[in-house]
């Protein structure tokens, strides 16, 4: 791409994140004293690391093997969060649950985004009856509550980690299509795109090299908030018994199964409940900060 064109892009589309490393975001957070967002980032890092190392701390048998002899033990040394109603180590289950939760969240967002952004870019770039029909289909899907769509998908394909991931991806995908069609449509008319076309660049190359990179920052921001939503839908379905089958530890199911013990052994419910609360809150707060960082207009209005 000619240097001049790149310059045009940067001036036409103000996107300070383009090409900047993640360090920029960290520097932004400290410079603007956004300590809450920084703390959220730390929480996410901590939980992600916990999820990654869980198999080395607790093997699968430990977190799934029923041992009624030690059911509902309170937290103490060695069993830092105590045990659940079937005598399984709660800390181990919460960490393994983080694996499942994050796997479902990242998997579904990646899946939904890949399809959604591609369709959105095509629908925004081309205006014909086919893309029009596709957009109406997306509107139709958006008209249904997301959780309901996900329930229908799980009901059809059965419950497993994969089907839960697919269900959330399908239920959120139309939003991405709508969300990305609009900026692509406005980019399509920009001078640098017209210029590329004038020098003979094909549609596919324009989409991949000029359009998609310019909505990149939007994708990252949207992904962060979508992760929080995916986790909420996933654990919600699991709470209703539509998640991965036992003995797979999943936070939503763990909360559902320990409701009865709230009065007598609140730790059983608090462990997965707090983990879920922290992760969703952190994703939302980080997402907010990321949006401010990426979009200078909202940054200015805030500070």
């Amino acid at each position: 791409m000619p240097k001049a064109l790149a310059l045009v892009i940067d001036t036409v589309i103000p996107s300070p994140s383009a090409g900047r490393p993640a360090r920029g975001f960290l520097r932004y957070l400290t410079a603007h004293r956004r300590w809450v967002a920084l703390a959220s980032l730390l929480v996410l890092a901590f939980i992600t690391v916990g999820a990654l190392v869980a198999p080395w701390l607790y093997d699968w048998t430990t977190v799934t093997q029923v041992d009624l002899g030690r059911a509902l033990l309170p937290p103490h040394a060695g069993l830092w969060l105590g045990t659940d109603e079937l005598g399984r180590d709660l800390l181990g289950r919460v960490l393994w649950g983080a694996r499942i939760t994050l796997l479902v969240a990242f998997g579904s967002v990646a899946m939904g985004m890949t399809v959604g952004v591609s369709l959105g870019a095509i629908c925004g770039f081309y205006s014909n009856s086919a893309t029009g029909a596709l957009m109406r289909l997306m509107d139709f899907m958006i008209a249904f509550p997301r959780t309901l769509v996900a329930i229908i998908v799980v009901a059809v394909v059965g419950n497993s980690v994969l089907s839960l991931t697919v269900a959330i991806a399908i239920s959120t995908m139309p939003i991405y299509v709508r969300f990305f069609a609009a900026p692509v449509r406005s980019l399509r008319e920009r001078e640098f795109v017209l210029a590329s076309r004038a020098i003979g660049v094909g549609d596919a190359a324009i989409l991949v090299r000029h359009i998609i990179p310019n909505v990149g920052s939007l994708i990252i921001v949207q992904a962060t908030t979508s992760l929080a939503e995916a986790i909420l839908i996933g654990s919600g379905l699991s709470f209703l018994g539509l998640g991965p089958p036992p003995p797979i530890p999943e936070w939503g199911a763990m909360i559902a199964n320990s409701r009865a013990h709230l009065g007598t052994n609140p730790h059983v419910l608090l462990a997965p409940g707090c983990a879920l609360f922290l992760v969703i809150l952190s994703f939302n707060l980080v997402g907010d900060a990321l949006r401010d960082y990426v979009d200078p207009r909202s940054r200015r209005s805030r500070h």
Partner: protein
Amino acid sequence: MGHRFPSVNCPLAVAGLALALAGGATHAIAETTLTVVQGTEIDTLDPAVSRSIPSQIVIAQVFNRLVKWDGPGLHKIVPDLAESWSVSADGTVWTFNLRKGVKFHDGTPCDAAAVKFNLDRVRSAELGSPNRSFFAAIEKVEATSPTVVTIGTKKPSPTLLEILAEQWAAISSPTAVDKAGLGRSYGRNPVGTGPYVFKNWIPNEHAEMVRNPDYFGAPAKTDRLVFRPVPEFAARVIELQTGNADVATSIAPELAGQFKGSDKMTLQQAPSAFQVFFELNVTKPPFDDVRVRKAVNMAIDRKAIVDKILLGYGRVPVSSFPEGTQGRKTFAPYKYDPDEARRLIKAAFPSGYSGVVTLWTPNGRYTKDRAVAEAVQGYLTAVGLKTDFKVWEWASYQKALYRAMPGRGTGKGSNEANMWLLGTGIANADIRLRRKLATGDPSNLTGYSNATVDGLLAKASEEMNYDKRMALYGEIQRYVWDAEPNTIPLFDQVQLIGKRKGVDGLDVYSDETLDFHNATVPAR
């Protein structure tokens, strides 16, 4: 209503009258109300079509049957609307002499024609009652005179009296049924002969009834009964604590602790005919091999399940019939021996069972059902069986299990699974055994078909001597316990009923129905 005394034939009423006169007050006794909170809303109050326990609890207060059980022990059948009865020498014609002068709450006389009307109605295809098949033995019902009913059966029917003692055989006012017309609207305006007169039912709010002053037996002790649905376990306990309710049914084990040391409420425990078990698909591997069925029965530590999951409010089964079931025989409980279980599985599958055992459970239907199923899954994994676990919502679970699939293994949707969790609380021995064990019965989900059991059931259906018949049921119980099981019995439920302190005289039946006839409430 204290100013209106019924015909004085009861010493208590005399004492009450004397007290009232001594105190110089003739009508100052305050009206007493007993409020019951149940977990599930009533679905219908038409006894002929009702099958749910919460409905039958309400129905039992308004209606009478021809005959009834003598009490929660189910020892013998005693008169209710019929004063006496006899059976012909060949065992096919039953004659019932009705109690004279009994009237329905709407004034209609309860005569032989009314009894015939009811027994014909419950058996009719037009009504389509789910209880219709229980009356299959009856050939015709005749009103021989205003007070004599004769029932002809196709074959000698030893179980007839037991069927007539069930809630479905309760006698409704023909006038009220006709007035309600076809369809199910009678279920909203039931009229019987019982100790309480139905007043109104506002769905999802309450059902209300008042004492029947003209009841033929001893009058009920409380003036008014109110039934309310409160689905949340914790909310029912709060209703008791705050004094909003006097009786709360099905208290969750983990909430039972709140009753200890409470000065406002007490916990009544009663045996229940309800047993929770896994049924095993005996038509395909691994459970088509009886050794594996015995192995899984030894792989489970039932004592731990009862102590840790049910918190002690349950019992380790010693028969497929829990306490309070008719004709119960008890045996040695299955011992917990995972090593022996592994050995038996190895004998059936020398290189281990390579398939996956599909395990289904409902969630929230029975006491701690899902948690118990998960524990069982853990025990099966421990003896080397790989499992696949599926949790169902109750309505779709039932549909999935009972779906007709002719020619496939069990012949039902249950064939998709290897084992599934269910419970039954039927206190009648014949019905309880026949449903689960008779070859081809619509409720037989396991594909169980055993010549010995079928033979014993056939013999029992012709045995007119009560004790001999019960002995036959005992033999079947022994056979399925020791020789050819088709279930993994998990635990016998214990009924936990919460009462406001001072509530007394509540009769709790093992089929989980309640009788409020003698119940009294303390002043508020």
